[in-house]
């Protein structure tokens, strides 16, 4: 539900947190770039995963735990939960300039 922006210095890699709660991914960070890191925080009492549909990453998230992924490729990608396939999130990753 909540998006917590981490470092936001424009030319550097940023860290964002996406909260997973109530069987749903929180809002996708708005201006993602290659090199940015997303911290996935599972606030549910169930196990979830943040899994890229096209491969690339597959983070297992035990209840109450965090996991992170650094974005390596530009483009649109769909993230879903392996355990609850109705949970999905679309990310748009820009190429990034002076990383």
């Amino acid at each position, binding site marked *: 539900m909540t998006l917590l922006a981490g470092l936001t210095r424009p030319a550097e890699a940023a860290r964002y947190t996406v909260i997973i709660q*109530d*069987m749903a991914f929180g809002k996708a960070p708005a201006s993602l770039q290659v090199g940015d890191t997303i911290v996935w925080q599972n606030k*549910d*009492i*169930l*196990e979830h995963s943040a899994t890229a549909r096209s491969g690339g990453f597959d983070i297992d998230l035990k*209840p109450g735990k965090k996991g992170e992924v650094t974005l390596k490729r530009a483009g649109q990608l769909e993230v879903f939960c392996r*355990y*609850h*396939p*109705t*949970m999905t999130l679309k990310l748009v990753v820009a190429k990034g300039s002076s990383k």
Partner: protein
Amino acid sequence: MFPRSTFVFAAILMLTPFAALAQDAKPNDAQIAHIAYTAGALDIAAGKQAIAKTSDPKVKSFAEEMVRDHQAVNDKALALVKKLNVTPADNPTSQSLTKAAEAKRAELNKLSGAQFDRAYIENEVAYHKTVNGALKDTLIPDAQNAELKTLLQQGLTLFTAHQKHAEEIAQSMAR
């Protein structure tokens, strides 16, 4: 606290295990915990039956989701009642839920293939609808302990997602 006749009536009906709750009976926390735990355990049993019988990967992964999630919530519930020093109390609603689920399991056991898959998923839709309705209208409002109430609310959110998932699978199954 529990009008006996209401429960007996519900037990006889069995089609509507929550009928007793829908009337004027107010279960206490020990009974609410027992009902919620039983409802979860019954769906775990249904999921295990489906895992053993189905050959549809979608149905299998749904059943695995049910077993995993309901087990996780029930583990939380057990830890909570232990912490609160509450002993879940068996009651006619738990008993009629169990009887109805056992009858359904026996009925499903006679089916196979796509017939089983459809009947299992349709029952999952109906079962989650019933349990979620009971949580929302009776068990959550009647729960006295705040932590129990919170856990039931979390359960309702999770099980509502289960219901949605089951409905999606039901719709995707060709008639």
